[in-house]
């Protein structure tokens, strides 16, 4: 009996040691994780075979992006003080709705891609959170835009929760909008507006590409 216990003890020890050793190997830096995903996305965007199949291109990119984002964290931050007043069910509904809305809006923006390159400037880690600063460079126009990825550590993986483009935080901007709508009308109204928006974008992207340039 005692021998068995000792054996288990040793097994646990070995396992723990193994885990402790393997963790640093598994957990890559935030920049590496962002770069890995971004490279995949750029590869798809630069693929001439996919250039004319925008629908497929969007789906491929969104599949990559989707699982590198902590959607609940995004939703929680965007609703801020109003998140606390929501029931678990409402939170789930909101998260799903907000995710669909963001995916639709941002996948539309992929069509604006015009050969921009990404430069990785710096990385800052504070506890379970990290900021990866990058620059998007358009050589043709000689333009560049700063893009900052904000990440949170979840089970050895860095997941995105905010995107700061040219100093403007996406989550912050939505938070102010959500707050304004909730305080001036109601949470239900916000949900209604979001559903409308999502529906409109879906309809717009379904139909032939309108005169949008």
């Amino acid at each position: 009996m005692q021998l068995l216990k000792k054996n288990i003890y040793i097994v646990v020890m070995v396992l723990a040691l193994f885990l402790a050793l393997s963790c640093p190997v598994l957990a890559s830096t935030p920049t590496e994780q962002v770069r890995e995903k971004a490279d995949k996305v750029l590869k798809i965007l630069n693929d001439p075979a996919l250039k004319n199949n925008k629908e497929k291109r969007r789906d491929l990119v969104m599949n990559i992006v989707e699982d590198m984002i902590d959607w609940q964290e995004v939703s929680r931050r965007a609703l801020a003080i109003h998140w606390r007043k929501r029931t678990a069910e409402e939170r789930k509904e909101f998260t799903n709705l907000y995710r669909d809305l963001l995916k639709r809006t941002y996948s539309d923006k992929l069509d604006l891609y015009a050969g921009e390159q990404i430069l990785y400037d710096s990385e800052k880690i504070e506890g379970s959170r990290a900021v990866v600063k990058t620059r998007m460079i358009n050589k043709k126009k000689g333009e560049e835009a700063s893009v900052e990825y904000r990440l949170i550590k979840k089970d050895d993986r860095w997941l995105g929760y905010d995107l700061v483009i040219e100093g403007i935080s996406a989550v912050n901007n939505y938070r102010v909008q959500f707050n304004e709508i909730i305080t001036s009308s109601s949470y239900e109204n916000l949900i209604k507006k979001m559903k409308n928006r999502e529906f409109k974008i879906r309809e717009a992207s379904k139909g032939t590409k309108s005169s949008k340039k």
Partner: protein
Amino acid sequence: MGFREDFGVAEDAMKHHGLLLLLLIIVVSVFFPLGTGYTQTTSPQDETIQSTEPPSASDAREAEESEEVKDKKEEDSSVKKEEQDKGKEEAADEDEKDDEYLEEEEMETIADPLKPFNRLMFDFNDKLYFYLLKPVAQAYEAVLPEPVRVSIRNFISNITTPVRLLNCILQGKAEKAGIEYSRFMVNTIAGGLGFFDVAKKYHNLQRQDEDFGQTLGFYGMKEGFYIVWPFFGPSTVRDTLGSAGDFFSDPFVYVNPTTDIEITKINSNIHSGINTTQRVNEISLTLGTYEEFKESSIDPYVSMRSAYFELRRKKIKE
């Protein structure tokens, strides 16, 4: 045209209009001393948290503590506060991590007492874009190839160096002023009078966007409330004043300065012509951006207001 002439012109302008500007500043700062009377809060939390920047994690906890202390003092809004506190307690029970990241959950303070007027002007500018500026820019885009339009942008940007340089100097930012000065010299001489931004391309000298609104902010003037101007778009009380200041340091205003009224008239036409060209040129290079912005927001007016404040506050801190 030499740098010295341009700069001299701008300097003269400041001498001539300096008094007027000073008067304007005094008038405005008397009327809008701290912006406090005009602060319209966007959330109950605003009443206590006035900081414009997200503090660090430890600061957030302190802020929350002080918030609670203030809560006790401010009894007039106790009903709202109670609700909020209740919500907080519930959340704390459900998931404690909520409190860890409070710092970024603060609502920024935005004063918008002119909201009905501003919304009207926002709609006006929106229509102006879709029915006038966009079609014009599209026609312009069809005629001029992209490299030409980029060069026009570079040229105008180079000519307006005095505006940025002056504000770098006014804020005592020697390094930035040096960069602007070097950029002007390099681009004027090696970049074909500024049509090519060689300073950025080969010397990695980035444009330093400093304006008079930022200078006023640098010296502690509060932003005041939000104003959407027809034609010009989002601004604040301070930035409106800043734009007026920048107008006087814009060399285009002093193209061939003379006392002859007829010529002055022509010059002012040239100036507005250049302004329009600049506007259309810029839109032609960024077609689609405004549409995307509108599509990605649920309330475009609020989204733009928030973005405007966030950007300006960040720029002033730089």
